[in-house]
């Protein structure tokens, strides 16, 4: 059970939160081309490493927040909890 550091509630079990996916800026709806808009809707960087993403503290403060997590090791940045992690298989 991943601990997700909510900026308001502190570290909480990931099941208390809702995952909101990669953070991407919303293009201007009045000037975006179909390709730009659909890239915003569908295309993802999906890196195996550091990713800025959104979480919603659904069972806590009900705030959306954005944070960086390493998708290979599940570490959060700034600041990490002590007890470093290891990536890879188990």
């Amino acid at each position, binding site marked *: *059970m991943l*601990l997700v550091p909510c900026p308001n509630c502190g570290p909480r079990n990931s099941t208390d939160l*809702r995952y909101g996916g990669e953070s991407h800026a919303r293009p201007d709806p*009045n000037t975006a081309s179909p390709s730009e808009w659909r890239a915003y*809707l569908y295309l993802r960087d999906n890196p195996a490493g550091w990713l800025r993403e959104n979480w919603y503290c659904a069972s806590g403060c009900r705030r959306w927040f954005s944070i960086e997590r390493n998708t290979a090791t599940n570490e959060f940045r700034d600041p990490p*909890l002590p*007890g470093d*992690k290891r990536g890879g298989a188990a």
Partner: protein
Amino acid sequence: MTMSRQGVQPTEVIDRAAKLRFRWNGKRFSGFEGDTIASALAASGEQIFSRSMKYHRPRGILTADYWDPNLMVQVGDDPNVRAGHRLLESGMDVRSQNAWPSLNRDIKAANSLLGRFLTPGFYYKTFMRPRWLWPTYERVLATFAPGGKIDLDTSHAYHDKRYTHPDVVVAGAGPAGIEAALAASSAGASVMLVSHEHSVGGHLRYSSDAADQAALVELRTALDASDVEVLTDSTVTGRYEDNWLGIVQRNHPIAVERLIKARAKTLVAAPGLIERPYVFEGNDRPGVITSGAARRLVNLWGVKPGERAVVFSANAEGDAAVADLERVGTEIAAVIDGRTGGHISSTRGSSRAVDAVVADGASIDADLLVVAAGWTAPTSLLNMAGDRPVYDPAAARFFPSDPPSNVLATGGLAGDADLDGLRQHGAATGRLAAARAAAVRHRLQARTARALPVEGDEPAWAPDERAPLGRDPHPELYRADTHGMVDMSEDISSKDLVAAAHEGYDSVELAKRYTTATMGPSQGKLETVNTVAAIAEARGETISEVGTTVWRPPYAPLTLGALAGRMFEPVRVSSIHPWHEANNVSVIQAGQWLRPDHYGDPAAEVRNVRRNVGLIDVTPLGKLDLRGPDVPKLLSLLYVNKWMRLGIGRVRYGMMCAEDGVVLDDGVTGRLGEDHYMMSTTSSGAGGVWEWVENWLQTERPDWQVHVTPVTTAYASINVAGPKSRELMGRVCEGVDLDAEAFPYMTVRQATVAGVAGCFMWRIGFTGELSFELHVPAGHGLHVWEALMDAGSDLGVAPFGLEGQRIMRLEKGHFIVGQDTDGLTLGPSTGLGSLIKLDKDDFAGKPELAWAADRSLPMVVAIQPDDPGVVPQEAAQIVRGDTNEILGRITSSRYSPTLNRSICLGQVEPDLAAGGTKVTVLLESGERIGATVIDHHAHFDPAGERLRG
């Protein structure tokens, strides 16, 4: 080999005064309290406990502990019980699992003769033709499925879970683990010590050495005096993210098994070592046991393992076994020392017992062969933490490499030392674990309580200054000069593994998958390293080069019952529900809600609403209270239509689309005051829309002043519908003019209803009748409902349920999001394209909706079958003529009691959407019927006169 009970041993754990009677394959047996099932049977002279999976070879005791693959039995309705671990209880009904007709005479033992044909993967190479025979072959193969039987009538029984947040969890209660727990506790940490065995002490429990026994007493005394929480017969089954631990407690007084979930700040892994069987011809013959098995049998249960033994020893444990055996009168025929080149090649005898051992080239008569060939380091918890243990050929086992700094290894897993050395390392590990736990605790507190100051600075992350344990040299003993069984539970020999490697399945994972080695109940605890060694040998490589497999959770199996725990799925009902239940309601599940579906006759309910007045409980309808000066902007952003000029007291329908233009939800929103609005959502969309609103407010428009409060369950909601609804409402409402002009359609008023202040009601309605949707503070819902029923008795008031409402909404052609629309239905497809105001500066989904305006899209349309008596089932497909080409589908259908005909909504291709278009509907029966698209959604009262009345 005949095992038998001997005189009292100073270390024994049985209570010879407490005799327990039980049954084994129907026959009466007895043992003592403290016996395991296996030790009781062994003491009674039983030699064969199971039959092997493939060849049905007789199998006896191998390790006499939890991991013994040969001791799987059925106890009552409990399959796959570890007889080497499970304590004997009075009255147990114990049966062997994998034998027919009996353990002693097993018909499938004939398979042994076919061994040369049943090579690994043989089933992949045959039974391909003829194809139609495969199902028959499969049924035969399936009869070889090992394991016990489940009883489908077994109840889930009582299971509960426990959550705990200890500073330090110590997995393993040998001397190092106990010392770690004591030291961490002394340093101020809260500590949980988890012992896989029935009592703490690890290998000291079955050591007859006086110093070991003294140490055991000392450690147990210290534990008793400490604050350490000790769990016995419990296992840390998994280490997950951020030291989230699963612990199974098998000896809970009530639960069959209890799952404990612990968020440990540091984890100490001290599982000890598992003795590794040795591979040689006849190594699976009953009478071949590990040195640990011999010592446990003698010292814990007073059982003499055999009359005349050969001991193959490559370490001190083997040497100690010799002494133990001699003490109970086993004659030692020979000690073969594996450290100085002594070797064993095979055993001889029947399939049921050892008669002789071939060692150093000579045949030695014996009924027992005790083997001490080395150790497997159970690195599971470290693997789960991401560590990749490394093989040391000099010590002939794997060692931790670089686990995360909140997981610390000690004891045999970490290295070798004498008892004092192990205890000192354990204590140092405990102190380190406590220091690091303090740092984690401090930071967790600091990050959790923003408003509360946390005392002191964060403690520094304690460096690991433990003096490392040594590594005793040990010969690399995996296979003798003959082939033998590597995996007892799967019947996989070293020959099979070599053959698999030569066939190209030459990495550990491929060989494992191909042969199924290590896939059985002990999950490689005994088999993995020998498997790796066999592959390495076949490839001409070292064990380090071949590498090991990844140990996956759980460390020890745990029941589905323990994992499931208790069922915690809430049931939601409105405050009016007791009335429904007292009035013959038929309920329907709608998510977590139980809702009235009907009260006996939905068609009659519909007719009564159309003629008189009806009440429906619509409490689950989503309701969001919105306050603030920027609410109109928010509504404009989330709905496709315009909201900036909604007057106080007015209500408007709105449709929401997602950013891809797909319909997300719909409902009405009313303005209750200057900066006060109430938004309603669909019942199923209530949670999602709230999150959606918060997401926009918090991430895209944080500067807007809007406060959102979900009030779905703060109000009981009642729709009062029908031509006589105004009259009924007039009898219960105070402080509001209900006249059609004062309170017209699509407006909202606040009122006192049946004496309850703080109600509000809107003049809207899904049914198409004059109606008032009443929202009452939830605690008064039942009172208001009863007041309405009383006040309207002479008006013919009657309740109606969801089914009646669905019929009436379909008569009116109102679509339901998620039923008449789907995951690709764009806003304009609903037929409400005119709502979408592309001249607004911005709203969710605007670009897609703008582009959609130029596309021809599938449309939601109303459809009437040509035969009014035929109701096509929902999901009936609309097809092109007699072909199978799909052009659309019926999304809703009912028989209308108002119109006395079948009516539908459906989605059709754009060129079929015009009124008057004839379509073909394929019924479930296969019959094709004609139907006509009508030119508006409403089958009934398309002008909406009744509604506005």
